[in-house]
């Protein structure tokens, strides 16, 4: 299954309807970006103009905000996003070796998506699971005590739900 099957293609009318409830909200830009990315999987280039017009901001301001925050993506992600914690507590329990294993296993580096569009691999800096290190997040599901073998089991299982 391709990534496109999970995420809808850009549609300005749909995007506008997502932003509509935020017009009366103070400081709406982050909630708006979360709404757009939550629906489309990323923040398409076309969204910048729409966000600027909707909230009476310059395109430069909107672009500046999108690019400041690591979470917002300018390209569609894979079917699943796998985040491996690389912060100190997980390092103390072998997260660097886990990351190396994951990269070899998936054939991609951090910030990339596998060729079949199945998995995007990302580093993350602390998932608050430091007493069950090393930790990973698959989409919104947290896993702890992740050995390379457990990583394979989880990622393979997640690939074929």
């Amino acid at each position, binding site marked *: 299954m391709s990534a496109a099957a999970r995420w809808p293609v850009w549609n300005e009318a749909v995007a506008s309807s997502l932003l509509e409830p935020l017009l009366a909200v103070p*400081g*709406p*830009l982050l909630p708006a970006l979360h709404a757009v990315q939550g629906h489309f999987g990323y923040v398409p280039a076309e969204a910048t103009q729409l966000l600027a017009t909707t909230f009476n901001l310059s395109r430069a301001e909107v672009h500046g905000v999108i690019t400041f925050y690591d979470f917002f993506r300018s390209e569609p992600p894979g079917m699943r996003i796998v*985040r491996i914690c690389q*912060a*100190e507590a997980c*390092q103390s329990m072998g997260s660097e070796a886990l990351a190396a294993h994951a990269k070899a296993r998936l054939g991609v580096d951090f910030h990339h998506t596998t060729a079949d569009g199945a998995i995007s691999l990302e580093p993350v800096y602390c998932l608050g699971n*430091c007493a069950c*290190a090393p930790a990973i997040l698959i989409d919104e599901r947290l896993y702890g005590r992740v050995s390379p073998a457990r990583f394979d089991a989880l990622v393979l299982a997640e690939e074929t739900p």
Partner: protein
Amino acid sequence: MITVYVPRDSAARSVGADEVAAAITHEAARRQLPLRLVRNGSWGMFWLEPLVEVATPAGRIAYGPVTVADVPGLFDAGFERGAPHPLRQGPTSEIGYLKNQERLTFARVGLTDPLSLDDYRANEGLAGLERALAMTPAAIVDALTTSGLRGRGGAAFPTGIKWRTVLNTESPQKYIVCNADEGDSGTFSDRMIMEDDPYTLIEGMTIAGIAVGATQGYIYLRFEYPDAWQTLNEAIARAYAAGVLGASVLGSGKRFDLEVRLGAGAYICGEETSLLESLEGKRGQIRFKPPLPAVQGLFGKPTVINNVISLATVPVIFARGAEYYRDFGMGRSRGTLPLQLTGNLARGGLVEKAFGLKLSELLYDFGGGSASGRPLRTVQVGGPLGAYLPSSLFDTLVDYEAFAAVGGMLGHGGVVAFDDRVNMAKMARYAFEFCALESCGKCTPCRIGSTRGVEVMDRLLAASNKTRELGLLNDLCDTMTHGSLCALGGLTPLPVQSAVKHFPEDFGLAAPAALAQSA
């Protein structure tokens, strides 16, 4: 009817609590045993997770760590009556790790169903808010000052003084902002409060609003905590439905509204002025201070901005009295600190203790030494900006001033332990790398200094004559410490220089004496 508890905390779920809960439900049905399954918070004994408890006439009996495969055997043994089994840990309240804590902020965590307001009320919940509603704003602020509570986010600034400034600043609109951008590695106490006892945070923020005259609160939560997002939103909805939040807090006629906002993966947004910028919908860049947020904060209005633990501690201070809280602790560190034992420790978890215990008690009596069985070589306390302390300093007392005296920082109470396989030069280099990655870019010492730091570190490690590079490193650290606008650039030298000072051999430096001469 048997009552079984399986935590819903994301750390417990991360090691299989959901699957164990499902297996227990399935097995009970198969044996035609009527079951009441409670998804409680985690007690914070993570090496025992998933920790299953069963209610018996003798209290709650704990079994753990339980896997799906263990479940039929537990029923065979009669665990629903608290019967013996290899995984039996005894009565939960008698487990040494818990019994030897002083849980004030975390009093309900593990005990209750986090989303049950009935559970919350039955366990001292809302008592603090009811007391506060009967007090004048000035009296509330006085009581908080008397309690001695200092900001638990890391800066340890007296919370009462912050509140007083906001109270005394005239404005038609004021805000309460909760900093839930818990980005420090080795910390999860904020996450646990939000997932395992969310009403205490809601109650604390409401008391803050009543105290300073703010009607709107925001919780700024990091996206890395999806479970906390769900739980907080559900708890807020229930609090509105029960009249705890909204136009008339507990029927007092006083308004307090609360909303959760999601961050987007910027460590710097844990710094309070960056967080406010981000809440306003901007890049999370540092603001110059003054003006302080207490005077000109969110949208330019007076704003109380406190960490989750600070706000979650407010209810117990009002429920039991400021003096009660103040009488825990030592020196200027009053009350208790929820410490988080993480990294290479046999028994990682949440330990809330009055200030004044030794770091070594945490590492060995609670933590049980390393998970790997090898000697502990160093601990980093206070997150990625905290110092690396060698074993010769493990006698340091958990106290803000005692940590400062040995060149460390207690911060948010996170303790990350490393065994003797750690390469301290790599950790020092990582500190610069992390700073470069997360710098907001506003000030030069942090934006440029962090990248130069990685380069100097690489040259130092490769050099045969280290003196020149070491001099450069110390110069750079001096510039970052004194020239950065906020703690990110200002404290990055702390892990770097503590690593060089205490572990010179990892940098190819002969001995501490040689270092002192060249510095």
